[in-house]
């Protein structure tokens, strides 16, 4: 019957040196390395960053196409055209209402978005809100230094957009049946050209149009 042989480890030490050498009690763990697996939180963060990158990219492309040399004039046709461009990019992105709010925050607080131009930003945010899956969207704009124009542009019926903070000019213009609530102040030309829906601003101002 074959007797088993234990493989002998080669040693650089002489037998007497081996006897004197202190035995490493952790030796078997010498070659252990922690496997680099992704933590669920890491995966969530990566996924959120990927979405934000796409939203940012859409905004940058909008600026490239519509705000050449970072100048953008608020006119009927520029607003329509900017919105069409924004729609084109927004439709391709999978995002949530929280991502819209994160984008609003990132507009002023990250160097990844170098330019906050209130008009195109407002159009883009409006496109994001109009194409979001959620029926009710809340945006906290109170911490932004810049008041964003054109928030709520073409807000469709069935959507409710709640803004915490002040908005700029042309808030809710072209509203298409949605409900826009601003817990703050809106500026000039609020609700201009709205076809239907409701705008509530501050404590008292209410704009309602029943039919388009």
């Amino acid at each position, binding site marked *: *019957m*074959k*007797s*088993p042989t*234990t493989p002998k480890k080669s040693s650089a030490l002489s037998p007497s040196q081996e006897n004197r050498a*202190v035995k*490493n*009690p*952790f*030796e*078997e*763990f*010498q*070659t*252990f*390395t*922690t*496997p680099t697996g992704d933590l669920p939180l890491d995966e969530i963060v990566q996924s959120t960053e990927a979405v934000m990158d796409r939203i940012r990219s859409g905004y940058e492309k909008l600026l490239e196409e519509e705000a050449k040399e970072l100048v953008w004039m608020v006119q009927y046709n520029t607003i329509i055209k900017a919105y069409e461009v924004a729609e084109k990019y927004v439709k391709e992105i999978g995002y949530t209402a929280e991502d819209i709010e994160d984008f609003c925050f990132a507009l002023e607080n990250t160097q990844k978005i170098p330019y906050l131009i209130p008009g195109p930003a407002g159009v883009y945010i409006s496109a994001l809100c109009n194409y979001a899956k959620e029926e009710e969207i809340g945006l906290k704009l109170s911490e932004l230094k810049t008041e964003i124009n054109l928030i709520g542009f073409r807000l469709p019926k069935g959507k409710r957009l709640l803004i915490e903070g002040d908005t700029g000019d042309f808030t809710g213009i072209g509203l298409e049946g949605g409900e826009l609530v601003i817990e703050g102040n809106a500026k000039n030309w609020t609700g201009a050209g709205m076809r239907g829906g409701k705008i509530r601003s501050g404590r008292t101002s209410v704009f309602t149009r029943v039919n388009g």
Partner: protein
Amino acid sequence: MGNNGYQKQTREIYQFISEHLYFNRPDMDIKGERFNSAILLSLLTALNRGKELIIGEPGLGKTTSAEYVCSLVYQFPLGVIWGSEVSGHPEQTEEKIIGRPDLGKLNRGEEDVVWTNFSQIPAKIVDEINRLPETKQSMILDGVDRGNWEYLNAMIINDESCLFATANYQDGGTNTIIAPLVDRFDVMVESRYPGANLSFLIGKDRRKDYVLRHPKYEKDLYHILKSKIAYEKKIPKMEEICDVYGQYIEEVIGVKPFQRPDRDQIRAEMESLELDLDASAFGRMLLAELSFCERYGQKRVVENCEEGCHYTEYLCHQIKNCASNRLPSSIKQYAQGLAWLLQDSEIDIEHILAVVPYTLAHRIQWKDEILSQKERSKRDDPFPIFLAKEAVKVVSQRYREQSEHLKDALAVGSKIFQGENLEPLEGDHPLYVEVKKDIDARKN
């Protein structure tokens, strides 16, 4: 590990005992297989030269289970096993346990020893060890530990031996087995009540163990054991008769017992199995919790825990004594046996988790508040084994939560030990402190 069929043979012995001799329910689940702990651990004890303490109520098969295992693993007819047992009672003497003077020679002025069957055969059974005085308990455990049996100026050496000791629960006629002695048992297992139906079956067939008897071979073996030839010369003669008995058993019941070379090969195979990193790290984590004391350097039974100790959530706060160095030996020995039986190439954490409660149950002295907290818990096991199982569950949960970081800490420890300039990893568990202590000791 060679595929020589020994594991299959062991399972066949297990199957035969559980189906024909020792009726009981499986109570251990290991990697999807169910075993009865008494038979499984007894088989591992017999194969791996262990020492097992079997507890239980009177009449529940403590001694008979050990007898069956010894008969089939060591190829001794049951009658020889019976005749070699030492029974525990307060008047038991060294002469009845180890040997006596040869009175005929003594009359002629010569000293010679007539060795008992107990000291000569490898499979040793002590019935009701807790009824023996402590000095006799110690004498038996010493003898099995060292393999030497001495009387007058003579000595015999057992090349292989295992010990099964039975003990009833505390009653008026029994002593406590003191901690230093109980620590020398590798495992403790209960021989349980098999339930009313199996018990009835046992009652129906009281002569079932006759298959393991053989009057002729028993007589031949007795003749050799009592003969006055040197012990070294008796061994091959005994093995010859045992081998013939083994062939008889194989013909009659279809189960092949193990011969001496088989047992040697099995032991070599078992000893070649090493622990994987998880098994090793978990074992270290458990030992750390059973021995650590931040205030006093280590656990000591004479020192009490202080209030507000940072480590109150660990086992060290629930126990009085320190884990002995025999504990990791026992764990490894039985985990090796189990891994070998399951034909695994190394010992993993499942093997460790299966055997640890049985190696730990008799060695821990729990604090009174833990005992009173848990003694009314619903359980299937006797209280010491239940507490050990609960403790192992808790530690294994802790291990699962931080296994990677713990192994990292041990890996960093190894690198520092070999001279790399690294900082040891931090962690809350006592094992991180132990790693630092070992590293500091190395530096000094």
